[in-house]
């Protein structure tokens, strides 16, 4: 396995000291019309941490992701990335700053090859435009070569380098999930947000995925994970934030969360006797 | 010359003039086919009449430009590469004339257009260019004169269709009428609803309306003007002198059409009209007579023993005979030397002559 920390400087070399706060979600509220999707949510992610974000369906997890990646703009509150607010930034700017994500229902570029998908990710750090491509200027060549090498490395890291020239749409489901993670890593992020990466996986694949997430973290990335599969979440995260009805109801280490009555109630529902 | 070309030697033998062809250049299909058809038929009639008596048939080859200048260069180049074509009736429109003109000029193919009226066409220095009808600059003043002197209209509203023919003509009429013009408006070709124009005319309350354009719009325009309450004189030019204008029925009654074409009270013209109707089952449409004249000039040349383009060009330049529409003689720019403009009136559902505009 190649040492990924030695690649592109912007990609992996942490700017903030290890253990410092990478992302801070501060009192974020998000309303759609009359519906409050996020209600005064606050949490932090430390450098090198794997943070799980869980909650029942409709609790606001993906909304929270979307707020962090700039898809939605919070109604109030602030989101700080490496100490600077990213509210109001364009989506691609946030990505270029160092937040990457995957999607709950895979959103690859289906008619591009696996390699090209990852190249689109590496392009986030590149600057060559049309003219340098047209005249094949040295910078273009350099960036193409670097991007290509980096992309192949990531594919290898994910174990799908043999399928580099396959169309993304032709990959198996699991490989598509892996490719999505590779593409996210290619943008050179500090924080990777994984949105239900295990959906549709069988137990064996889930175990593999757990290992993979740990490996990603070990490369120096910070991971924010939304996942329904509790075995996986409990097994891989350092800390868990639980949302229900857009509100944070619990936060803590996996073991604490599992025994938290509020969490159990949120997931399994409450008996009428308990409720009244 | 070269052996290249698609000459077919039917009727082999005879003298060299047997393989000669004329070309029609203009719209046969497409949106402008309406104006092309009488021109083709007029030229065809001349050729048919010639072939009835001649030993060797002359063929009329149709180059269908659909009226589009885009297609013109390719077709013109095709015409010039066929050496048996020694004269072109057309191009029908000014636009395609402008695009094809340089090619004909470069290769020395004489052309006589029966319908392109843009005055600037004659200013390009193409010695092959001829025009069998008066351009906008000759007809416009006549129309203005008619409005001033004969109709004695005290106020005139001038409308044009933004086409180069219509806008050119209307511009000249407007200039010549000067203060008599109480308002102007421009419509678009293919427009069908003229309510804004009708309101403008009603507001200006003119004694007469002059429209520079073609019959398709004129037919609708006069109908809507009459419906809108306009009861003055409607004056139009040769682009409207077509049986289709009579589709406007009662609304067209009393409309004045100016045209640089001899009325069919003249026996030669009457013969043409009779022959045309016998051949095609309809009255001659706009520019049919001009096309007939143009073709006849070339045919006279062939009868005279002309066998190539050079001789034909010389023949056309020196031609001076009476045609159906006018005395056919060209000045050194290719313009007709002798243009008379006549007035016509729509009376009882027919276009009848009203005398020459002096």
């Amino acid at each position: 396995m190649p040492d990924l920390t030695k690649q592109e400087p912007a990609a992996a070399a942490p700017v903030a000291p290890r253990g410092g706060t990478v992302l801070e979600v501060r009192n974020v509220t998000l309303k759609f019309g009359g519906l409050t999707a996020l209600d005064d949510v606050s949490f932090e992610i430390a450098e090198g941490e794997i943070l799980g974000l869980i909650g029942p369906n409709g609790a606001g997890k993906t909304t929270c992701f979307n707020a962090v990646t700039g898809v939605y703009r919070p109604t109030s509150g602030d989101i700080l990335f490496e100490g600077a607010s990213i509210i109001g930034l364009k989506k691609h700017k946030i990505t270029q700053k160092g937040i990457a994500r995957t999607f709950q229902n895979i959103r690859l570029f289906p008619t591009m090859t696996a390699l090209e998908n990852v190249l689109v990710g590496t392009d986030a750090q590149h600057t060559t435009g049309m003219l340098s491509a047209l005249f094949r200027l040295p910078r273009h060549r350099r960036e193409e070569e670097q991007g290509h090498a980096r992309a192949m490395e990531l594919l290898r890291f994910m174990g799908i380098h043999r399928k580099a020239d396959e169309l993304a749409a032709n990959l198996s489901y699991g490989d598509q999930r892996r490719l999505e993670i590779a593409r996210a890593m290619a943008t050179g992020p500090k924080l990777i947000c994984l949105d239900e990466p295990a959906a549709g996986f069988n137990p064996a694949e889930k175990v593999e995925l757990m290992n993979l997430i740990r490996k990603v973290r070990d490369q120096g990335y910070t991971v924010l994970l939304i996942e329904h599969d509790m075995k996986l979440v409990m097994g891989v995260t350092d800390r868990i934030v639980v949302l229900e009805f857009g509100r944070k109801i619990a936060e803590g280490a996996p073991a604490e969360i599992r025994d938290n009555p509020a969490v159990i109630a949120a997931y399994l529902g409450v008996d009428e006797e308990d409720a009244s | 010359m070269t052996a290249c070309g698609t000459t077919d030697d039917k009727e082999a033998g005879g003298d060299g003039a047997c393989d000669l062809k004329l070309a029609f250049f203009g719209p046969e299909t497409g949106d402008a086919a309406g104006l092309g058809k009488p021109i083709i038929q007029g030229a065809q009639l001349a050729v048919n009449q010639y072939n009835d008596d001649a030993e060797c048939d002359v063929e009329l080859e149709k180059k269908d430009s659909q009226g589009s200048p885009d297609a013109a260069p390719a077709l013109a180049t095709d015409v010039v590469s066929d050496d048996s074509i020694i004269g072109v009736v057309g191009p029908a429109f000014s636009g395609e004339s402008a695009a094809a003109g340089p090619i004909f000029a470069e290769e020395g193919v004489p052309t006589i257009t029966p319908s392109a009226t843009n005055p600037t066409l004659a200013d390009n220095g193409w010695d092959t260019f001829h025009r069998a009808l008066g351009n906008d600059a000759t007809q416009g003043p006549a129309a203005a004169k008619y409005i001033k002197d004969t109709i004695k209209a005290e106020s005139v509203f001038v409308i044009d269709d933004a086409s180069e023919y219509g806008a050119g003509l209307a511009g000249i009429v407007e200039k010549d009428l000067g203060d008599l013009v109480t308002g102007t408006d421009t419509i678009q070709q293919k427009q069908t609803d003229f309510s804004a124009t009708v309101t403008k005319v009603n507001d200006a309350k003119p004694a007469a309306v002059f429209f520079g354009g073609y019959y398709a719009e004129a037919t609708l325009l006069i109908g809507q003007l009459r419906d809108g309450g306009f009861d003055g004189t409607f004056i139009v030019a040769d682009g409207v002198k077509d049986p289709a204008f009579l589709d406007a029925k009662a609304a067209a009654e009393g409309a004045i059409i100016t045209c640089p074409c001899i009325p069919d009270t003249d026996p030669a013209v009457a013969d043409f009209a009779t022959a045309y109707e016998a051949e095609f089952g309809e009255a001659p449409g706009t520019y049919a007579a001009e096309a007939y004249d143009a073709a006849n000039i070339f045919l006279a040349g062939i009868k005279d023993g002309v066998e190539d383009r050079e001789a034909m060009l010389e023949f056309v330049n020196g031609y001076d005979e009476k045609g159906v529409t006018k005395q056919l003689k060209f000045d050194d720019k290719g313009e007709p030397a002798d243009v008379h403009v006549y007035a016509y009136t729509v009376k009882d559902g027919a276009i009848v002559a009203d005398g020459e505009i002096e």
Partner: protein
Amino acid sequence: MKKLSALPKPAKILIWFLIALFAYALPLLELPILSTPDSDFASVLFTVSIYCLVALGLNIVVGYAGLLDLGYVGFYAIGAYTVAILTSFHGSWPLLLAIPVAVVVAMISGVILGAPTLRVRGDYLAIVTLGFGEIIRLVAVNTEWLGGNKGINNIGRPPNLGDEKTGLFEVPHLFWGDGTVLLDNKDTTKFLIFGYSDAVPYYWMGLTAVVLVLLADILIKNSRVGRAWEATREDEDAAELMGVPTFKFKLLAFSTGAFVGGLAGALFASRQSFINPQSFLLLFSILYLAAVVVGGQGNRWGVLLGAFLVAYLPERFRGFEDFRVLAFGLALVLLATLRPEGLLPPRRTVRAKQLEHELDELEEGAEPDHDGEETARA
């Protein structure tokens, strides 16, 4: 294609060279099956080359970036009018100076149109661009300064190389007799003399432009820019979240397309020596789009084929004049029904189609999920 890419590089270069040579020699060969019986073959080929340019340009907009443009003829008109104004109507610039200005003006107008409208949704973009194309034409019709319907003539021509009488040398055409092929020394093309009646030098000029644009297309497509376009087309949100400034790249595609369209218009005006608004009807936008879609949007070779067919077939079969448009319409309906991906779709589309089919079978006739793909039904 596959076999071709397997060949060693020198062989590949040789093959491409031969193909190019054949393309350049085409009007001289006058092949009986290809030649147009009722129209000058070289002029038709020039028209084909202009359509090829237009199709390549529109393919960037529609095929690569996925932006539906129904007013592409507007940029073509801007290129043509700029050249006409500068070389004839309001100036007497040499053509070679006017063309760069024309393409830049077309490109700027692309930015001006694109900047506000590329934010609106896809279908709206189609109708806004349609309106734009019509506005350009109508402004030309109604503005004296642009010549109105009278148009502009005596547009500048490319400079001649060598003596005007003979050119550098003369190239004979072939003559196909009954079973014999002869060099026809009387029918020659003066090399690089841009006269009026010989379209061959113009065709060479057009073809050279096509080759250059094609090369640029290959270079750009295979770069960060090309990938950004494709990613944006496939899934705009995902592309944005992968760090692609999608708006910027859409605008770039739009203005690049406008650039090529302007170039095509400029060359067209020069050959035609005369333009008027009739050459820029909405119908042409539709024909151009049809060329792209018929050939296979997204595949540069496909759109070239499409452009060839759309420009050439009507000229080849002038005999069917009256029924040309009818046949064209029928062809479009049949194509959409039977071969919606075009005659020569991008290879990846073919692969994706196969996959889709397999998946269909897996689901037993179920409708496949079109993730991120625009479908007729939302």
